[in-house]
């Protein structure tokens, strides 16, 4: 199949040591910390109370609104607390978390139905995917049911299954494709059926030869599922760049890939869809790669959601040296964790502990306008100009240079010889603009409320005056009557 090239991109060292390590099941932890927000959109609302006994897969919190996802119990046990616990987020802020003390039984909830998904229509499949709490497991965590429903409003010709995994260290998708190819193909075909798409392309980077082979064998049985090998270049796994590579078309600004007739889903999501539709089981665990130079032994684990990162590291033998940074995700777009007392959530593709040598970021120097950032940007932006404007507070200027088209992939920061934290400038600018928008919205609301109050007071004043005038008129009329009567 003809492939196209996307601009820019970088080649970080892949560090795929865990690629040879088969998926291990993590022994059940004593406590699970399940946040109600593990997805893009509105947080889920808790249904259980402290003291409730729950079974594995039982609904803990239901979704709120159109863009949301429910949360299920990752194992059986008792709800011992529902409180704010640190979220796996660089801010260190808390998130409402359901804390479950596991009873060791790991017993599934009753009533899980196994059905033939190919007898269901799009809405039924999406409803089950939504009810199972499935979100984009590549890390974006967008509710998958919403994406599958796009098949109703857009004509979809191609489903792209993202097996890119371009981030260094991460190998969870690689192992999934190596070890469970048949289940994956099944999940892919279910999605194809839901989207009513004509074909599925499984895009796998060329640094995963075993996965390519196994998936090819499994896909061979079906005409409409093909494996496509793509060059390994970061950020190949980004949706915009993946679509461009496979179709030669760019997703127009402000539009979706569905506008091109294409939907992209991660391999992990396909697996979760299969589990939900064939076995009726909601999303309660995921594959996580543990890696980094500070970890004694890198490996891939199947982890129940809500397991603390500290327990995951402990299982892997702890640190062999003091890590410089602990990240959730890969080194390019992963999030720095404030400490390890945070839970694994739906979007945790990996937890890596990097040494100072691997981080290799020096003190920032002034920009020398070398243009390396421009050459590496896959979106055709001018990072040096955007960062200079973000730094001096000229946020609208940064937007004019294309800030809102930035996917925050980090290629520019990766190559900058002056080690300038370009992406943090963009994140700051985007956040500041959002805060100002909220501020302005509040100001507009306030103005409306103030106007309403002024009008209310004026109306009251008017009513008072009318009432006074009426009473005066009545008094006059009465006086006249009395005068007429006495006359």
């Amino acid at each position, binding site marked *: 199949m003809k492939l196209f090239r996307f601009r820019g991109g970088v080649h970080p060292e892949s560090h795929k040591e865990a690629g040879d390590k088969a998926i291990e099941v993590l022994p059940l932890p004593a406590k699970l910390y399940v946040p109600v927000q593990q997805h893009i959109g509105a947080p889920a609302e808790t249904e259980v109370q402290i003291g409730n006994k729950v079974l594995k897969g039982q609904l803990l919190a239901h979704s709120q609104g159109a863009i949301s996802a429910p949360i299920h119990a990752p194992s059986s046990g008792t709800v011992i607390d529902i409180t704010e616990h640190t979220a796996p*987020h660089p801010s260190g*802020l808390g998130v409402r978390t359901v804390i479950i003390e596991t009873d060791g039984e790991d017993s599934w909830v009753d009533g899980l139905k196994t059905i033939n998904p190919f007898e269901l229509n799009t809405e039924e499949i999406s409803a089950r995917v939504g009810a199972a709490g499935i979100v984009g497991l590549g890390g974006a965590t967008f509710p998958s049911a919403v994406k599958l429903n796009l098949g109703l409003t857009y004509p979809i010709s191609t489903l792209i299954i993202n097996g890119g995994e371009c981030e260094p260290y991460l190998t969870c998708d690689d192992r999934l494709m190596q070890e469970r190819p048949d289940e994956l193909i099944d999940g892919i075909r279910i999605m194809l059926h839901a989207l009513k798409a004509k074909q599925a392309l499984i895009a796998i980077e060329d640094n995963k030869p075993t996965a390519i082979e196994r998936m090819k064998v499994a896909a061979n049985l079906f005409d409409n599922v093909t494996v496509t090998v793509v060059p390994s270049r970061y950020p190949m796994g980004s949706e915009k760049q993946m679509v461009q590579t496979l179709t030669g078309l760019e997703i127009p600004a402000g539009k979706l890939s569905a506008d091109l007739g294409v939907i992209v889903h991660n391999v992990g999501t396909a697996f979760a869809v299969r589990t939900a539709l064939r076995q009726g089981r909601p999303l309660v665990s995921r594959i996580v790669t543990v890696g980094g130079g500070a970890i004694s032994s890198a490996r891939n684990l199947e982890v129940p959601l809500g397991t603390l990162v500290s327990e995951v590291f402990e299982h892997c033998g702890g640190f062999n040296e003091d890590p410089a940074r602990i990240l959730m995700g890969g080194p390019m777009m992963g999030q720095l964790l404030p400490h390890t007392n945070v839970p694994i959530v739906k979007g945790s593709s990996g937890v890596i502990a990097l040494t100072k040598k691997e981080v290799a970021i020096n003190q920032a120097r002034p920009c020398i306008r070398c243009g390396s950032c421009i050459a590496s940007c896959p979106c055709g932006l001018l990072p040096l100009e955007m960062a200079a404007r*973000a730094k001096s507070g000229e946020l609208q200027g940064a937007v004019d240079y294309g800030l809102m088209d930035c996917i925050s992939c980090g290629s520019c920061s990766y190559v900058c010889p002056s080690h300038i934290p370009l992406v*943090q400038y963009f*994140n700051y600018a985007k956040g500041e603009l959002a805060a*100002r928008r909220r501020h302005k919205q*509040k100001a507009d609301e306030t103005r409306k*409320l103030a106007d309403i109050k*002024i009008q209310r007071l004026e109306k009251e004043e008017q009513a008072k005056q009318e009432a006074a005038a009426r009473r005066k008129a009545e008094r006059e009329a009465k006086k006249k009557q009395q005068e007429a009567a006495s006359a």
Partner: protein
Amino acid sequence: MIIAIMSLSLLGLGLGVMLGLAGRYLKVEQDPIVIEIEAMLPGSQCGQCGFPGCAPAAEALAEGSASVTLCPPGGRLLAEELAAKLGVTADFSGMDEDEPSLAAVSESTCIGCTRCFKVCPTDAIMGAPKQIHTVFKEACTGCKACVEVCPTECLQMHPIKVTLGTWSWPKPALAA
């Protein structure tokens, strides 16, 4: 030499006349800046700036008779924006470094006197005589007018806490 003097003088005269004519016939009548400034102010007409509303405050700012730091609900951000718009430098050190805050009624000490909701510019307090009052957080602008009139001091300002939804990245802290 005479020619040089004559020509330069004529040039100066001619340009001066053109400037005078332009100043008269191309003059901008109304000052649009007052309208722009008023749009920037919170619009809650709370009166904390000392002016009877946001419109008079905007006029005073445009004239230059009021300081850009006059608006507490607008905070430091507004002061900086006004300073930028008017092209003045201002000393922001006097501004309250308080984070934005919202009022809340401490229900155990409220006596239902109704003084607070009468002064609230956005009708954010709901209550009736002898009934416990409550503040609608979404409508509260943090102008503190209610706190000042409450006889039992049951109305307090609470800083708005940052949540995961409202948190944003700070600028990178660099030596450069």
